[in-house]
């Protein structure tokens, strides 16, 4: 406030004012300095705790890797060995096997021990092959089935452990836990005998196996135990040590806190220092040493993203270059030396490029036909293509697998009948690179479609009319005016497709792995499950993937921003439609056919498969129609609890996300506060990072080693969803706020309404449809998320997406189809509810 003009005695008031300002600046600087010192003190305190902990003999160990490797082995093995084996069976065999697998995994360990084992043998007998191969197949099937609910252990050891009495197993488990955390603790004799036989390096892994199998006697609790254990191996160990030290006497409450949370304290200290530095910089730039309350909002968001996004990502980058603390290219060299990895790199690049080309080639004409011509039913087509955007990728993959499986794919059966081919496999095979490209394209072309059609519908139509009146035909206008003007959004859409396809995990893991078409993402997930060195390889690969994705996003943002034309006129004009004339009907039929092949066919397949007993037979065949799958998913406690989890996590992520989005849109659009663009940048960075990479980073940094221990909890999933999907919601809300002229709010304030009242009565109602859309845009992908969940789930935090994937991979395809269709129904229903809530003004 400059009150100079009002001063009676100008000079002295000005001096007073100056003096006061200088004084408050000095106080502010002193305060910041104090906070800075406090940060250093926190770090020192934490460090002291660490030192004491080290002195007391605590070692971190890598029990984590063992746990993780064990649970990961299950899916890797199933995909690499069992699934391909199943694929080569006849329909009858497959039916028998899948039914068996379902029975076995449901809750029939005992059954497997007695009767089911023989059944498997019988199936294998029928399947033919030599004795050895049958035995191997039988073992693998039994093994994998068991692994669905518990990790691997050799058959002999398992028998031994299972034969233990229940109480003994329980006691042994507890002993082993202590044993694992402290190498000095006595090892129970049963475990010792096992340990003696093992390579010392694998000792820890074996201990973990014994522990888990010990739980295995009490099978229902196994999942919980694993989850519990995963939650923070370091954390637990540290707390036990802290307690032991305290029990030793002479340790006060403060010291106890420092022991048990040493790294959390260090982390807080670092954050405090970072905040103080940022504040200092901002104030120095403002040349005003006073505190702006909005900085708290900015710092909160920045701190959150620093811990849960930047720390994991930077850790990954660091670990890829300095795997053991020293710089080495060894990991990269090793990765490169495997043909499988080179192959995966090649596949990812080719698949993503081809998907981008094909997707854009489909999306542009579609966007034009649907948005700018008098195509019949254009509105319906538009919502149909947009709807595909809300379908989980793996559902499409599942459907295309059923349709174009080389042996029993429905489309293949038809084609064979029509073309008069014999009973040999083919002609289409989804388990190939072209198959993968096709499935990726059918799922990712809507990304380009939405980007392009939004721009196209907003374009000032008189730009095209000017070309027509200048003598250019509609086709010439399309190529010389429309296309060049669309080029920026076309490129943006294409790059979005490229990055999404390259970082997709769900589709390649379902369609690619059976035919050994590996991609970088499937390699990452597989490596991540393979102990210490595997993790190292996974890190290196994911850093590569992250670099690829971020580089492209950077290009699209920076380079294209300069070429972005403002083609939107202030007037709301309805675009003039190009009259297709004689082509109107043929083109409509063409678009309809495309929709039928890409949307109806897969969804119908999912629906009909969900009613089948034998996936290989027609639904109309006698006895093949069943409601059992639907009954199964509707009555299964597993399904219901994972559905509850998904709804809960997605709601939490979307709600937290929309709050951040609202705060950010206010800061960006309504204030000039310094530093407001930093969170926006971080948010864009996080969402541009491939999911698998983000999840891997979180696994490695969120288990207590950096002071935050949320591994295996619901929080880690919610945070991962939030970071990955926040940007979609934020962009929606920010652009909505930018379209509300500030005078609307000012007018309300002039009328006597306060700031909060104005926000609630003017701004919120105006942006409500966009807030709902933003919420929805975070909710939907979080609801069916799979890539990150695969790496981050635990026994108690399974989600619907993961459940579905599990059913598909290990249990029963019809059942997973029922679940997939249920997910589709839920998504569609939500879309409808959102539409009603916002009175039809809701659209994405």
């Amino acid at each position, binding site marked *: 406030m400059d009150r100079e003009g009002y001063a009676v005695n100008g000079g002295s008031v000005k001096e007073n004012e100056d003096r006061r300002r200088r004084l408050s600046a000095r106080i502010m600087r002193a305060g910041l300095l104090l906070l800075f010192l406090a940060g250093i003190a926190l770090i020192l305190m934490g460090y002291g705790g660490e030192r004491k902990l080290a002195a007391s003999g605590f070692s971190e160990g890598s029990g984590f890797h063992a746990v993780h490797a064990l649970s990961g082995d299950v899916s890797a093995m199933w995909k690499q060995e069992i699934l391909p084996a199943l694929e080569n069976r006849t329909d009858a065999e497959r039916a028998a096997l899948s039914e068996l697998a379902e029975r076995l995994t449901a809750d029939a360990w005992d059954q497997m021990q007695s009767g089911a084992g023989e059944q498997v043998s019988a199936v294998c007998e029928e399947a033919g092959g030599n004795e050895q191969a049958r035995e191997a197949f039988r073992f693998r099937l039994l093994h994998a089935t068991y692994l669905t609910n518990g990790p691997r252990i050799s058959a002999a050891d398992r028998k031994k452990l299972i034969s233990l009495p229940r109480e003994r197993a329980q006691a042994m488990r507890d002993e082993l836990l202590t044993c694992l955390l402290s190498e000095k603790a006595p090892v129970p004799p049963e475990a010792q005998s096992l340990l003696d036989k093992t390579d010392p390096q694998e000792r820890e892994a074996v201990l973990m196996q014994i522990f888990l199998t010990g739980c295995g006697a009490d099978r229902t609790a196994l999942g919980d135990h694993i989850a519990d254990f995963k939650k923070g191996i370091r954390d637990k160990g540290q707390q036990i040590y802290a307690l032991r030290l305290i029990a030793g006497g002479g340790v006060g409450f403060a010291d106890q806190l420092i022991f048990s949370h040493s790294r959390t304290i260090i982390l807080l200290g670092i954050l405090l220092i970072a905040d103080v530095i940022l504040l200092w910089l901002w104030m120095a730039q403002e040349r005003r040493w006073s505190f702006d309350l909005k900085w708290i909002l900015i710092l909160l968001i920045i701190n959150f993203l620093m811990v849960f996004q930047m720390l994991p990502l930077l850790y990954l980058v660091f670990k890829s270059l300095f795997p053991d603390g020293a710089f080495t290219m060894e990991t990269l060299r090793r990765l490169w030396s495997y043909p499988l990895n080179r192959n995966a790199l090649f596949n990812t690049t080719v698949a993503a490029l081809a998907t981008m080309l094909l997707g854009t080639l489909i999306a542009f004409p579609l966007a034009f036909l649907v948005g700018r011509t008098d195509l019949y039913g254009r509105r319906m087509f538009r919502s149909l293509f947009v709807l595909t955007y809300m379908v989980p990728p793996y559902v499409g993959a599942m459907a295309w697998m059923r349709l174009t499986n080389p042996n029993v794919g429905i489309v293949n059966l038809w084609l064979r009948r029509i073309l008069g081919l014999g009973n040999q496999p083919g002609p289409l095979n989804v388990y190939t690179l072209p198959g993968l490209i096709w499935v990726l394209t059918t799922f990712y072309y809507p990304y380009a479609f939405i980007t392009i059609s939004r721009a196209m519908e907003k374009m000032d139509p008189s*730009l095209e*009319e000017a*070309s027509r009146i200048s*003598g250019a*035909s*509609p086709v010439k206008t399309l190529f010389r005016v429309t296309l060049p*003007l669309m080029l920026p959004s076309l490129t943006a859409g294409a790059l979005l497709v490229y990055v999404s396809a390259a970082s997709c995990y769900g589709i390649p893991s379902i369609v690619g792995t059976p035919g050994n078409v590996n991609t970088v993402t499937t390699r990452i997930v597989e490596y991540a499950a393979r102990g210490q060195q595997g993790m190292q390889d996974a890190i290196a690969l994911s850093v590569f993937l992250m670099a690829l994705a971020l580089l492209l996003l950077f290009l699209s943002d920076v380079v294209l921003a300069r070429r972005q034309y403002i083609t939107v006129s202030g007037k709301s004009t309805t675009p003039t439609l190009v009259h297709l004339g004689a082509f109107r009907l043929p083109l409509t039929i063409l678009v309809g056919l495309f929709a039928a092949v890409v949307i109806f066919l897969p969804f119908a397949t999912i629906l009909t498969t969900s009613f089948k007993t034998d996936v290989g037979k027609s639904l109309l065949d006698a006895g093949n129609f069943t409601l059992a799958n639907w009954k199964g998913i509707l009555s299964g406690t597993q399904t219901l609890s994972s559905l509850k989890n998904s709804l809960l996590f997605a709601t939490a992520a979307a709600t937290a996300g929309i709050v951040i989005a609202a705060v950010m849109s206010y800061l960006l659009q309504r204030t000039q506060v310094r530093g407001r663009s930093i969170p926006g940048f971080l948010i864009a960075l996080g969402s541009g990072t491939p999911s698998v990479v983000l999840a891997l980073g979180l696994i490695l940094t969120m288990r207590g080693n950096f002071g935050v221990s949320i591994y295996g909890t619901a929080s880690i999933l919610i945070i991962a969803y939030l970071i990955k999907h926040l940007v979609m919601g934020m962009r929606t809300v920010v652009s909505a706020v930018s379209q509300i002229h500030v005078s609307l709010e000012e007018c309300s304030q002039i009328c006597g309404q306060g700031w909060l009242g104005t926000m609630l009565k003017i701004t919120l109602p105006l942006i409500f449809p966009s807030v709902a859309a933003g919420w929805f845009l975070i909710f939907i992908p979080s609801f069916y998320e799979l890539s990150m969940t695969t790496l981050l789930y635990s026994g108690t935090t399974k989600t619907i997406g993961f459940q579905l994937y599990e059913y598909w991979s290990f249990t029963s395809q019809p059942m997973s189809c029922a679940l997939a269709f249920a997910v589709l129904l839920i998504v569609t229903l939500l879309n409808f509810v959102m539409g009603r809530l916002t009175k039809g003004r809701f659209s994405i």
Partner: protein
Amino acid sequence: MASVTIRHVTKAFGESVVIRDFDETIKDGEFVTLLGPSGCGKTTMLRMIAGFDQPTSGEIYIGERLVCGGKTFVPPEKRGIGMVFQSYAVWPHMNVFDNVAYPLTIRRLPKEEIRSKVERVLEVTHLTRYAGRFPAEMSGGQQQRVALARALAAEPELLLLDEPLSNLDAKLRESMRFEIKELQKRLGMTVIYVTHDQTEAMAMSDRIFVVNRGGVQQSGTPEEIYHHPCSPFVADFLGKIDFFKGEAGGGKIVLTEMDHQSIPYDGPLTGKVDVAVRPENLQIDPAGTLSGRLETKYYLGDVSDFRVRAGSEQVRVIAPGAAFPDLAEGQEVRFSIREFLVYEDDGSLEEMLQIRS
């Protein structure tokens, strides 16, 4: 020859009829303005002439050629028209030269010819200096001139202008007005101009079509329309005018709301009428037959605007400069009417005034 003949054109969007039986001819080389309030259908008519909309029924000829009607429909690119859009529609991905050259390259003219033609038209529109610039680097007025240059480049015989000046500031608007008129005279084009600004229409047009509710209310030269508006609507739309209620009969009109004072009248109407008077046709006159009380006085520099209360009507009198400096507010004044128009009172006036307010 680029006359435009519009034969019984009707245009309906679904239920709502936007143009109703439009039937006019625009002569070769004529500057015609479609003038009307927003939503009256004038832009729709222009877009039908351009070929962006198709009439529901009726025919349009450009010169002797039927461009739409019956089974015939000539698309816009085949009509050989120049057009300037309200939003300019200057393509942001081409520089000024390419924008202007576009219609010529479409016609596949030799490169040299294109160059010389573009240069000529750029010169005419004072854009030579900006040939290499991109639209984003230019002001609204410059972009508007680019749009005009582009429309002129192919030397069309018919030029359509859709409120081309509405986005410009007052000064620029005035100068562009004369530039356009000048060009039209020089090049001898037929121009159809759409606007809702009556000053613009008066200044530029050979003929004005006053359009309202999908039909032409009156067509004629600016003078005819200003001085002999055929309806209260037209009278009101062009220039300032006030309406007073009256009863005609016996060689006079009794102004019923103005304390039943009367003015002489020997026209054909009898019974209830509306008397329309332009403020410049009223004068403060000590010998005037009408009287009232001076309510307010606004001094506007070149003129003074007096508001006189007579009965329940307010009378607006415009007098030059600082006339009658000694008249004080609240004082009785006498005034007289030099010229007035009389319309039958069919209730349409009330309706119209309601639309206005």
